[in-house]
Protein backbone atom coordinates (compact mmCIF):
# COMPACT_ATOMS: atom_id res chain seq x y z
CA UNK A 1 0.00 0.00 0.00
CA UNK A 2 2.76 2.41 1.04
CA UNK A 3 4.79 1.58 -2.05
CA UNK A 4 1.75 2.15 -4.31
CA UNK A 5 1.23 5.54 -2.68
CA UNK A 6 4.88 6.39 -3.26
CA UNK A 7 4.74 5.33 -6.91
CA UNK A 8 1.50 7.30 -7.39
CA UNK A 9 2.97 10.44 -5.79
CA UNK A 10 6.13 10.31 -7.89
CA UNK A 11 4.15 9.53 -11.06
CA UNK A 12 2.04 12.67 -10.48
CA UNK A 13 5.09 14.75 -9.54
CA UNK A 14 7.10 13.73 -12.61
CA UNK A 15 4.14 13.41 -15.01
CA UNK A 16 2.66 16.84 -14.28
CA UNK A 17 5.29 18.76 -16.32
CA UNK A 18 4.32 16.84 -19.48
CA UNK A 19 0.61 17.46 -18.88
CA UNK A 20 1.01 21.19 -18.20
CA UNK A 21 3.38 21.70 -21.14
CA UNK A 22 0.96 19.86 -23.44
CA UNK A 23 -1.96 22.00 -22.20
CA UNK A 24 0.08 25.18 -22.74
CA UNK A 25 1.03 24.03 -26.25
CA UNK A 26 -2.57 23.45 -27.37
CA UNK A 27 -4.45 25.90 -25.12
CA UNK A 28 -5.81 29.07 -26.69
CA UNK A 29 -6.56 32.29 -24.80
CA UNK A 30 -5.82 30.58 -21.48
CA UNK A 31 -5.78 33.36 -18.89
CA UNK A 32 -6.13 33.66 -15.14
CA UNK A 33 -8.31 32.44 -13.41
CA UNK A 34 -9.33 29.67 -15.86
CA UNK A 35 -8.07 26.29 -14.61
CA UNK A 36 -8.27 24.81 -18.12
CA UNK A 37 -7.94 26.43 -21.54
CA UNK A 38 -11.29 27.70 -22.89
CA UNK A 39 -10.38 26.42 -26.37
CA UNK A 40 -7.84 24.11 -27.91
CA UNK A 41 -5.86 24.74 -31.06
CA UNK A 42 -2.97 23.14 -32.85
CA UNK A 43 -1.81 26.52 -34.19
CA UNK A 44 1.43 26.56 -32.17
CA UNK A 45 2.25 22.97 -33.15
CA UNK A 46 1.36 23.67 -36.79
CA UNK A 47 3.57 26.75 -36.79
CA UNK A 48 6.49 24.34 -36.62
CA UNK A 49 6.07 23.87 -40.34
CA UNK A 50 5.39 27.51 -41.11
CA UNK A 51 8.00 29.44 -43.06
CA UNK A 52 8.12 32.34 -40.59
CA UNK A 53 8.88 30.16 -37.58
CA UNK A 54 12.40 29.01 -36.90
CA UNK A 55 11.57 26.32 -34.33
CA UNK A 56 12.24 23.54 -36.81
CA UNK A 57 15.51 25.19 -37.82
CA UNK A 58 16.35 25.44 -34.11
CA UNK A 59 15.62 21.75 -33.71
CA UNK A 60 17.93 20.94 -36.61
CA UNK A 61 20.63 23.28 -35.27
CA UNK A 62 20.44 21.72 -31.80
CA UNK A 63 20.53 18.18 -33.21
CA UNK A 64 23.52 19.02 -35.40
CA UNK A 65 25.42 20.74 -32.59
CA UNK A 66 24.71 18.07 -29.98
CA UNK A 67 25.41 15.27 -32.48
CA UNK A 68 28.74 16.81 -33.52
CA UNK A 69 29.75 17.38 -29.89
CA UNK A 70 28.84 13.76 -29.04
CA UNK A 71 30.79 12.23 -31.93
CA UNK A 72 33.87 14.48 -31.63
CA UNK A 73 34.03 14.24 -27.83
CA UNK A 74 33.56 10.45 -27.80
CA UNK A 75 36.04 9.77 -30.59
CA UNK A 76 38.53 12.28 -29.18
CA UNK A 77 37.97 11.05 -25.64
CA UNK A 78 38.69 7.45 -26.71
CA UNK A 79 42.03 8.40 -28.24
CA UNK A 80 42.90 10.78 -25.41
CA UNK A 81 42.04 8.22 -22.75
CA UNK A 82 44.43 5.79 -24.45
CA UNK A 83 47.18 8.42 -24.61
CA UNK A 84 46.63 9.31 -20.95
CA UNK A 85 46.69 5.65 -19.88
CA UNK A 86 50.10 5.26 -21.51
CA UNK A 87 51.48 8.57 -20.34
CA UNK A 88 54.01 8.81 -17.51
CA UNK A 89 51.86 11.61 -16.01
CA UNK A 90 48.54 9.81 -16.23
CA UNK A 91 47.39 10.98 -12.77
CA UNK A 92 48.21 14.63 -13.57
CA UNK A 93 46.26 14.46 -16.82
CA UNK A 94 43.28 13.02 -14.97
CA UNK A 95 43.36 15.82 -12.41
CA UNK A 96 43.70 18.39 -15.21
CA UNK A 97 40.63 16.90 -16.89
CA UNK A 98 38.55 17.88 -13.87
CA UNK A 99 39.39 21.58 -14.27
CA UNK A 100 36.42 22.43 -16.53
CA UNK A 101 34.11 20.89 -13.89
CA UNK A 102 35.48 23.03 -11.11
CA UNK A 103 33.88 26.04 -12.78
CA UNK A 104 30.21 26.52 -13.62
CA UNK A 105 29.70 26.39 -17.43
CA UNK A 106 28.54 30.00 -17.63
CA UNK A 107 31.59 31.20 -15.70
CA UNK A 108 33.78 29.14 -18.01
CA UNK A 109 32.09 30.79 -20.98
CA UNK A 110 32.62 34.24 -19.44
CA UNK A 111 36.33 33.47 -18.93
CA UNK A 112 37.01 32.19 -22.43
CA UNK A 113 34.82 34.75 -24.20
CA UNK A 114 37.65 37.27 -24.86
CA UNK A 115 39.59 34.55 -26.73
CA UNK A 116 36.50 33.43 -28.64
CA UNK A 117 36.09 37.07 -29.75
CA UNK A 118 39.76 37.30 -30.79
CA UNK A 119 39.40 34.08 -32.78
CA UNK A 120 36.40 35.71 -34.56
CA UNK A 121 34.20 32.89 -33.31
CA UNK A 122 31.86 34.98 -31.18
CA UNK A 123 28.24 34.53 -32.19
CA UNK A 124 29.12 31.59 -34.43
CA UNK A 125 28.39 27.87 -34.30
CA UNK A 126 32.17 27.26 -34.19
CA UNK A 127 32.52 29.27 -30.98
CA UNK A 128 29.67 27.40 -29.32
CA UNK A 129 31.11 24.10 -30.50
CA UNK A 130 34.50 24.95 -28.99
CA UNK A 131 32.87 25.95 -25.70
CA UNK A 132 30.78 22.78 -25.52
CA UNK A 133 33.79 20.61 -26.38
CA UNK A 134 35.71 22.24 -23.56
CA UNK A 135 33.23 20.57 -21.20
CA UNK A 136 32.30 17.44 -23.19
CA UNK A 137 35.78 16.30 -24.22
CA UNK A 138 37.24 15.94 -20.68
CA UNK A 139 33.96 14.31 -19.60
CA UNK A 140 34.27 11.64 -22.32
CA UNK A 141 37.99 11.25 -21.66
CA UNK A 142 37.47 10.61 -17.96
CA UNK A 143 34.59 8.23 -18.66
CA UNK A 144 36.55 6.24 -21.25
CA UNK A 145 39.72 6.22 -19.16
CA UNK A 146 38.33 3.23 -17.27
CA UNK A 147 38.41 1.16 -20.49
CA UNK A 148 42.17 1.41 -20.99
CA UNK A 149 43.21 -1.11 -18.37
CA UNK A 150 46.08 -3.59 -18.61
CA UNK A 151 43.56 -6.12 -19.92
CA UNK A 152 42.59 -3.93 -22.90
CA UNK A 153 46.25 -3.44 -23.75
CA UNK A 154 46.82 -7.21 -23.58
CA UNK A 155 43.86 -7.86 -25.90
CA UNK A 156 45.30 -5.35 -28.35
CA UNK A 157 48.75 -6.96 -28.17
CA UNK A 158 47.24 -10.43 -28.63
CA UNK A 159 45.36 -9.27 -31.72
CA UNK A 160 48.57 -7.80 -33.14
CA UNK A 161 50.49 -11.02 -32.36
CA UNK A 162 47.83 -12.99 -34.25
CA UNK A 163 48.43 -10.85 -37.33
CA UNK A 164 46.00 -7.92 -37.05
CA UNK A 165 47.07 -4.53 -38.36
CA UNK A 166 46.64 -1.62 -35.86
CA UNK A 167 43.45 -0.64 -37.74
CA UNK A 168 42.06 -4.18 -37.58
CA UNK A 169 42.88 -4.47 -33.88
CA UNK A 170 41.01 -1.21 -33.30
CA UNK A 171 37.98 -2.07 -35.43
CA UNK A 172 37.61 -5.76 -34.64
CA UNK A 173 38.83 -6.01 -31.05
CA UNK A 174 39.00 -2.72 -29.16
CA UNK A 175 35.90 -0.94 -30.45
CA UNK A 176 33.53 -3.89 -29.84
CA UNK A 177 35.01 -4.31 -26.33
CA UNK A 178 34.62 -0.60 -25.58
CA UNK A 179 31.16 -0.26 -27.18
CA UNK A 180 29.07 -0.15 -23.95
CA UNK A 181 31.24 2.67 -22.58
CA UNK A 182 31.40 4.43 -25.95
CA UNK A 183 27.59 4.33 -26.15
CA UNK A 184 27.32 5.83 -22.68
CA UNK A 185 29.82 8.55 -23.62
CA UNK A 186 27.89 9.30 -26.84
CA UNK A 187 24.56 9.58 -24.98
CA UNK A 188 25.94 11.63 -22.14
CA UNK A 189 27.87 14.12 -24.26
CA UNK A 190 24.88 14.47 -26.60
CA UNK A 191 22.65 15.32 -23.63
CA UNK A 192 25.25 17.66 -22.20
CA UNK A 193 25.18 19.72 -25.40
CA UNK A 194 21.43 19.25 -25.94
CA UNK A 195 20.53 20.57 -22.46
CA UNK A 196 22.96 23.49 -22.51
CA UNK A 197 21.62 27.01 -22.49
CA UNK A 198 23.97 29.25 -20.49
CA UNK A 199 27.24 28.49 -22.25
CA UNK A 200 25.61 28.65 -25.71
CA UNK A 201 23.79 31.88 -24.90
CA UNK A 202 26.90 33.63 -23.56
CA UNK A 203 29.28 32.49 -26.33
CA UNK A 204 26.84 33.01 -29.17
CA UNK A 205 25.49 36.28 -27.73
CA UNK A 206 22.05 34.90 -28.56
CA UNK A 207 22.84 34.49 -32.27
CA UNK A 208 23.05 30.69 -32.42
CA UNK A 209 19.38 29.98 -31.80
CA UNK A 210 19.34 26.46 -30.49
CA UNK A 211 16.10 25.09 -29.03
CA UNK A 212 17.03 26.08 -25.47
CA UNK A 213 17.86 29.62 -26.61
CA UNK A 214 14.49 29.71 -28.38
CA UNK A 215 12.63 28.52 -25.26
CA UNK A 216 14.20 31.40 -23.36
CA UNK A 217 13.35 33.88 -26.13
CA UNK A 218 9.70 32.75 -26.23
CA UNK A 219 9.47 32.98 -22.43
CA UNK A 220 10.84 36.54 -22.70
CA UNK A 221 8.17 37.35 -25.29
CA UNK A 222 5.51 35.80 -22.99
CA UNK A 223 4.67 33.38 -25.82
CA UNK A 224 3.81 30.40 -23.62
CA UNK A 225 2.38 28.15 -26.41
CA UNK A 226 5.55 28.30 -28.54
CA UNK A 227 7.77 28.01 -25.45
CA UNK A 228 5.81 24.88 -24.52
CA UNK A 229 6.13 23.40 -28.03
CA UNK A 230 9.89 24.08 -28.00
CA UNK A 231 10.12 22.54 -24.51
CA UNK A 232 8.30 19.41 -25.66
CA UNK A 233 10.66 19.16 -28.65
CA UNK A 234 13.58 19.39 -26.21
CA UNK A 235 12.20 16.42 -24.29
CA UNK A 236 11.95 14.17 -27.36
CA UNK A 237 15.57 13.02 -27.93
CA UNK A 238 16.28 12.35 -24.23
CA UNK A 239 13.03 10.33 -24.04
CA UNK A 240 14.17 8.33 -27.04
CA UNK A 241 17.60 7.78 -25.49
CA UNK A 242 15.96 6.70 -22.24
CA UNK A 243 13.96 4.14 -24.16
CA UNK A 244 17.10 2.89 -25.91
CA UNK A 245 19.39 2.72 -22.93
CA UNK A 246 18.34 3.63 -19.42
CA UNK A 247 21.67 2.92 -17.76
CA UNK A 248 23.51 5.28 -20.10
CA UNK A 249 21.64 8.23 -18.60
CA UNK A 250 22.80 7.68 -15.04
CA UNK A 251 26.57 8.11 -15.28
CA UNK A 252 26.51 11.86 -14.86
CA UNK A 253 29.96 12.08 -13.35
CA UNK A 254 32.84 10.00 -14.64
Amino acid at each position, binding site marked *: MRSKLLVGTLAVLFGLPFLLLALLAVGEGWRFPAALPPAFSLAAVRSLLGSGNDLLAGLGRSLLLAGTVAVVATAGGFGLARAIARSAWARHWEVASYLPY*ALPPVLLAVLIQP*FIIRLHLSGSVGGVLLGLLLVALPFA*TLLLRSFWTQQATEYEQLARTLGCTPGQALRQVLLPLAWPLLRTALFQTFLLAWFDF*GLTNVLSVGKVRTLTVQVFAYVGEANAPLAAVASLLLLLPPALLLRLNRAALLRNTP
Partner: protein
Amino acid sequence: MRFRLPKLLLGGYGLLVVGLPLAGLAYALLGSVGLAGPLAAGFTGRYWLALGHDPGLLYAALYSAGVALVAVGLSTGLALALVLGAQAALRRGPLLGLLYVPLLMPALVLAFYLFQLLSRSGWLSRLSYQAGLTSRLEAFPELVQDAAGVGIVLAHVLLTFPFLALLFQAIYQESRLDDYYQLTRTLGASAGQFRRRVALPLLLRRAAPTLLLSTVATLGAYDIPLLLGRPYPQMLSVYLTTRLQRFDLRELPAAYLAGFVVAGGLLVLLVPALRYTRRHAL
Protein backbone atom coordinates in the same frame (compact mmCIF):
# COMPACT_ATOMS: atom_id res chain seq x y z
CA MET B 1 55.21 9.69 -36.25
CA ARG B 2 53.42 7.05 -34.18
CA PHE B 3 55.41 8.11 -31.11
CA ARG B 4 54.59 11.79 -31.62
CA LEU B 5 50.85 11.45 -32.15
CA PRO B 6 49.84 10.83 -28.50
CA LYS B 7 52.09 13.70 -27.41
CA LEU B 8 50.52 16.03 -29.96
CA LEU B 9 47.06 14.86 -28.94
CA LEU B 10 47.80 15.43 -25.26
CA GLY B 11 49.41 18.79 -25.99
CA GLY B 12 46.30 20.00 -27.81
CA TYR B 13 44.11 18.59 -25.07
CA GLY B 14 46.17 20.36 -22.40
CA LEU B 15 45.86 23.64 -24.29
CA LEU B 16 42.08 23.25 -24.47
CA VAL B 17 41.17 22.03 -20.97
CA VAL B 18 43.91 23.70 -18.93
CA GLY B 19 45.39 26.42 -21.13
CA LEU B 20 42.16 28.09 -22.23
CA PRO B 21 40.47 28.33 -18.79
CA LEU B 22 43.71 29.44 -17.10
CA ALA B 23 44.34 31.99 -19.86
CA GLY B 24 40.79 33.23 -19.26
CA LEU B 25 41.49 33.48 -15.56
CA ALA B 26 44.74 35.41 -16.25
CA TYR B 27 42.89 37.73 -18.66
CA ALA B 28 40.23 38.38 -16.02
CA LEU B 29 42.97 39.20 -13.48
CA LEU B 30 44.71 41.55 -15.93
CA GLY B 31 41.36 43.10 -16.82
CA SER B 32 40.59 43.71 -13.15
CA VAL B 33 43.80 45.78 -12.77
CA GLY B 34 43.29 47.72 -15.99
CA LEU B 35 45.91 45.88 -18.05
CA ALA B 36 43.57 44.06 -20.45
CA GLY B 37 40.19 44.68 -22.03
CA PRO B 38 38.82 47.17 -24.53
CA LEU B 39 39.37 50.22 -22.29
CA ALA B 40 42.63 49.16 -20.65
CA ALA B 41 44.51 52.31 -19.63
CA GLY B 42 47.33 51.04 -17.47
CA PHE B 43 47.67 49.53 -14.04
CA THR B 44 45.14 50.51 -11.42
CA GLY B 45 44.10 48.96 -8.13
CA ARG B 46 40.88 50.92 -7.76
CA TYR B 47 38.58 48.07 -8.81
CA TRP B 48 40.09 45.83 -6.16
CA LEU B 49 39.77 48.62 -3.58
CA ALA B 50 36.15 49.19 -4.62
CA LEU B 51 35.39 45.52 -4.06
CA GLY B 52 35.20 46.13 -0.31
CA HIS B 53 32.52 48.80 -0.78
CA ASP B 54 30.34 46.80 -3.18
CA PRO B 55 28.36 44.16 -1.31
CA GLY B 56 26.76 42.82 -4.53
CA LEU B 57 29.29 40.06 -5.17
CA LEU B 58 29.37 38.96 -1.54
CA TYR B 59 25.57 38.82 -1.37
CA ALA B 60 25.42 36.87 -4.62
CA ALA B 61 28.03 34.41 -3.30
CA LEU B 62 26.27 33.97 0.05
CA TYR B 63 22.85 33.67 -1.60
CA SER B 64 24.16 31.07 -4.09
CA ALA B 65 25.91 29.11 -1.34
CA GLY B 66 22.71 29.12 0.73
CA VAL B 67 20.56 27.96 -2.19
CA ALA B 68 23.10 25.27 -3.14
CA LEU B 69 23.45 23.91 0.38
CA VAL B 70 19.70 23.83 1.02
CA ALA B 71 18.90 22.30 -2.40
CA VAL B 72 21.60 19.60 -2.28
CA GLY B 73 20.91 18.95 1.43
CA LEU B 74 17.18 18.46 0.80
CA SER B 75 17.85 16.32 -2.27
CA THR B 76 20.32 14.15 -0.36
CA GLY B 77 17.87 13.73 2.52
CA LEU B 78 14.99 12.79 0.22
CA ALA B 79 17.13 10.41 -1.84
CA LEU B 80 18.49 8.69 1.28
CA ALA B 81 15.01 8.39 2.76
CA LEU B 82 13.79 6.77 -0.44
CA VAL B 83 16.71 4.36 -0.82
CA LEU B 84 16.82 3.34 2.84
CA GLY B 85 13.06 3.41 3.44
CA ALA B 86 11.67 1.93 0.24
CA GLN B 87 14.34 -0.57 -0.77
CA ALA B 88 11.81 -3.32 -1.56
CA ALA B 89 9.77 -1.01 -3.81
CA LEU B 90 12.92 0.13 -5.61
CA ARG B 91 13.88 -3.46 -6.43
CA ARG B 92 10.59 -4.32 -8.10
CA GLY B 93 7.86 -2.38 -9.75
CA PRO B 94 7.97 0.90 -11.63
CA LEU B 95 9.52 3.10 -8.91
CA LEU B 96 13.12 2.85 -10.17
CA GLY B 97 12.04 3.58 -13.76
CA LEU B 98 10.08 6.63 -12.62
CA LEU B 99 13.22 8.16 -11.13
CA TYR B 100 14.76 8.37 -14.61
CA VAL B 101 12.00 10.67 -15.90
CA PRO B 102 13.36 13.96 -14.46
CA LEU B 103 16.74 13.19 -16.05
CA LEU B 104 15.04 13.94 -19.39
CA MET B 105 14.40 17.54 -18.38
CA PRO B 106 16.69 20.37 -19.39
CA ALA B 107 16.97 22.80 -16.47
CA LEU B 108 15.48 25.59 -18.59
CA VAL B 109 12.37 23.53 -19.39
CA LEU B 110 11.90 22.64 -15.74
CA ALA B 111 12.21 26.32 -14.80
CA PHE B 112 9.62 27.28 -17.43
CA TYR B 113 7.28 24.55 -16.17
CA LEU B 114 7.66 25.62 -12.52
CA PHE B 115 7.03 29.23 -13.49
CA GLN B 116 3.80 28.21 -15.22
CA LEU B 117 2.86 26.07 -12.21
CA LEU B 118 3.84 28.20 -9.22
CA SER B 119 3.68 31.84 -10.26
CA ARG B 120 0.80 34.00 -9.02
CA SER B 121 -0.97 33.57 -12.33
CA GLY B 122 0.16 29.93 -12.59
CA TRP B 123 -1.82 26.73 -12.55
CA LEU B 124 -1.77 26.14 -8.79
CA SER B 125 -2.94 29.69 -8.18
CA ARG B 126 -5.78 29.17 -10.66
CA LEU B 127 -6.77 25.89 -9.02
CA SER B 128 -6.73 27.49 -5.56
CA TYR B 129 -8.85 30.36 -6.92
CA GLN B 130 -11.36 27.94 -8.44
CA ALA B 131 -11.45 25.98 -5.17
CA GLY B 132 -12.17 29.19 -3.26
CA LEU B 133 -8.90 29.07 -1.30
CA THR B 134 -7.76 32.42 -2.68
CA SER B 135 -9.92 35.34 -3.81
CA ARG B 136 -7.45 37.28 -5.98
CA LEU B 137 -4.10 36.93 -7.70
CA GLU B 138 -2.08 38.57 -4.91
CA ALA B 139 -3.52 36.25 -2.26
CA PHE B 140 -1.47 33.34 -3.64
CA PRO B 141 1.96 33.08 -1.98
CA GLU B 142 5.01 34.19 -3.94
CA LEU B 143 6.71 30.90 -4.80
CA VAL B 144 8.81 31.96 -7.80
CA GLN B 145 10.92 35.08 -8.26
CA ASP B 146 10.81 35.36 -4.48
CA ALA B 147 13.52 36.74 -2.21
CA ALA B 148 14.15 33.44 -0.43
CA GLY B 149 14.67 31.50 -3.66
CA VAL B 150 11.96 28.92 -2.92
CA GLY B 151 11.31 28.32 -6.63
CA ILE B 152 15.02 27.95 -7.38
CA VAL B 153 15.51 25.47 -4.53
CA LEU B 154 12.43 23.49 -5.57
CA ALA B 155 13.62 23.26 -9.17
CA HIS B 156 17.04 22.03 -8.11
CA VAL B 157 15.55 19.49 -5.70
CA LEU B 158 13.31 18.15 -8.49
CA LEU B 159 16.35 17.70 -10.73
CA THR B 160 18.88 16.50 -8.17
CA PHE B 161 16.88 14.25 -5.85
CA PRO B 162 16.01 11.55 -8.46
CA PHE B 163 19.60 11.54 -9.74
CA LEU B 164 20.97 11.09 -6.21
CA ALA B 165 18.38 8.41 -5.43
CA LEU B 166 19.53 6.45 -8.50
CA LEU B 167 23.16 6.95 -7.49
CA PHE B 168 22.55 5.81 -3.89
CA GLN B 169 20.58 2.82 -5.16
CA ALA B 170 23.44 1.82 -7.46
CA ILE B 171 25.93 2.14 -4.56
CA TYR B 172 23.54 0.19 -2.28
CA GLN B 173 23.51 -2.71 -4.71
CA GLU B 174 27.21 -2.58 -5.65
CA SER B 175 28.21 -2.53 -1.97
CA ARG B 176 25.89 -5.49 -1.24
CA LEU B 177 24.29 -3.63 1.63
CA ASP B 178 21.52 -6.22 1.76
CA ASP B 179 24.11 -8.80 2.89
CA TYR B 180 25.38 -6.34 5.52
CA TYR B 181 21.79 -5.87 6.66
CA GLN B 182 21.37 -9.61 7.25
CA LEU B 183 24.73 -9.71 9.04
CA THR B 184 23.97 -6.78 11.36
CA ARG B 185 20.53 -8.24 12.13
CA THR B 186 22.17 -11.56 13.00
CA LEU B 187 24.53 -9.70 15.33
CA GLY B 188 21.57 -8.11 17.08
CA ALA B 189 21.33 -4.66 15.54
CA SER B 190 17.96 -3.12 14.78
CA ALA B 191 16.97 -1.98 11.27
CA GLY B 192 17.40 1.64 12.39
CA GLN B 193 20.90 0.95 13.71
CA PHE B 194 21.84 -0.67 10.39
CA ARG B 195 20.62 2.40 8.50
CA ARG B 196 22.33 4.92 10.78
CA ARG B 197 25.62 3.14 11.47
CA VAL B 198 26.28 1.08 8.36
CA ALA B 199 24.27 2.14 5.32
CA LEU B 200 24.23 5.93 5.80
CA PRO B 201 28.00 6.44 6.33
CA LEU B 202 28.85 4.10 3.45
CA LEU B 203 26.44 5.73 0.99
CA LEU B 204 27.51 9.25 1.93
CA ARG B 205 31.23 8.52 1.77
CA ARG B 206 31.03 6.80 -1.59
CA ALA B 207 28.82 9.51 -3.04
CA ALA B 208 30.83 12.40 -1.54
CA PRO B 209 32.63 13.50 -4.76
CA THR B 210 29.33 13.54 -6.67
CA LEU B 211 27.61 15.43 -3.85
CA LEU B 212 30.39 17.99 -3.92
CA LEU B 213 30.18 18.42 -7.70
CA SER B 214 26.37 18.66 -7.45
CA THR B 215 26.77 21.46 -4.90
CA VAL B 216 29.16 23.32 -7.22
CA ALA B 217 26.79 22.78 -10.17
CA THR B 218 23.91 24.24 -8.14
CA LEU B 219 26.09 27.08 -6.88
CA GLY B 220 26.92 28.04 -10.46
CA ALA B 221 23.46 27.35 -11.88
CA TYR B 222 22.30 29.81 -14.52
CA ASP B 223 19.17 28.65 -16.38
CA ILE B 224 16.96 28.12 -13.33
CA PRO B 225 17.77 31.34 -11.42
CA LEU B 226 17.54 33.31 -14.66
CA LEU B 227 13.85 32.36 -14.97
CA LEU B 228 12.87 31.76 -11.36
CA GLY B 229 15.07 34.30 -9.59
CA ARG B 230 14.61 38.03 -9.14
CA PRO B 231 16.98 40.90 -10.00
CA TYR B 232 18.09 41.15 -6.37
CA PRO B 233 19.45 39.02 -4.79
CA GLN B 234 20.92 37.20 -7.79
CA MET B 235 22.78 33.93 -7.98
CA LEU B 236 26.46 34.11 -8.97
CA SER B 237 26.26 33.14 -12.66
CA VAL B 238 23.36 35.50 -13.31
CA TYR B 239 25.14 38.28 -11.37
CA LEU B 240 28.33 37.82 -13.42
CA THR B 241 26.69 37.68 -16.83
CA THR B 242 24.49 40.67 -15.99
CA ARG B 243 27.57 42.73 -15.12
CA LEU B 244 29.47 41.59 -18.21
CA GLN B 245 26.61 42.29 -20.57
CA ARG B 246 26.02 45.87 -19.44
CA PHE B 247 26.39 48.42 -22.19
CA ASP B 248 28.81 50.60 -20.21
CA LEU B 249 32.28 49.26 -21.10
CA ARG B 250 33.74 51.08 -18.07
CA GLU B 251 32.04 48.44 -15.94
CA LEU B 252 34.01 45.64 -17.58
CA PRO B 253 37.04 45.68 -15.22
CA ALA B 254 34.75 45.27 -12.21
CA ALA B 255 33.00 42.40 -14.00
CA TYR B 256 36.38 40.79 -14.82
CA LEU B 257 37.31 41.17 -11.17
CA ALA B 258 34.10 39.45 -10.08
CA GLY B 259 34.75 36.61 -12.56
CA PHE B 260 38.32 36.20 -11.34
CA VAL B 261 37.36 36.21 -7.66
CA VAL B 262 34.56 33.67 -8.16
CA ALA B 263 36.59 31.34 -10.39
CA GLY B 264 39.70 31.59 -8.21
CA GLY B 265 37.66 31.12 -5.04
CA LEU B 266 35.90 28.04 -6.44
CA LEU B 267 39.19 26.49 -7.56
CA VAL B 268 40.86 27.15 -4.20
CA LEU B 269 37.89 25.62 -2.35
CA LEU B 270 37.07 22.79 -4.68
CA VAL B 271 40.40 21.23 -5.59
CA PRO B 272 41.39 20.26 -2.00
CA ALA B 273 37.78 19.32 -1.17
CA LEU B 274 37.54 17.06 -4.20
CA ARG B 275 40.90 15.50 -3.42
CA TYR B 276 39.79 14.88 0.19
CA THR B 277 36.43 13.36 -0.73
CA ARG B 278 37.98 11.15 -3.43
CA ARG B 279 40.65 9.92 -1.01
CA HIS B 280 38.09 9.13 1.66
CA ALA B 281 35.42 7.71 -0.64
CA LEU B 282 35.27 3.98 0.06
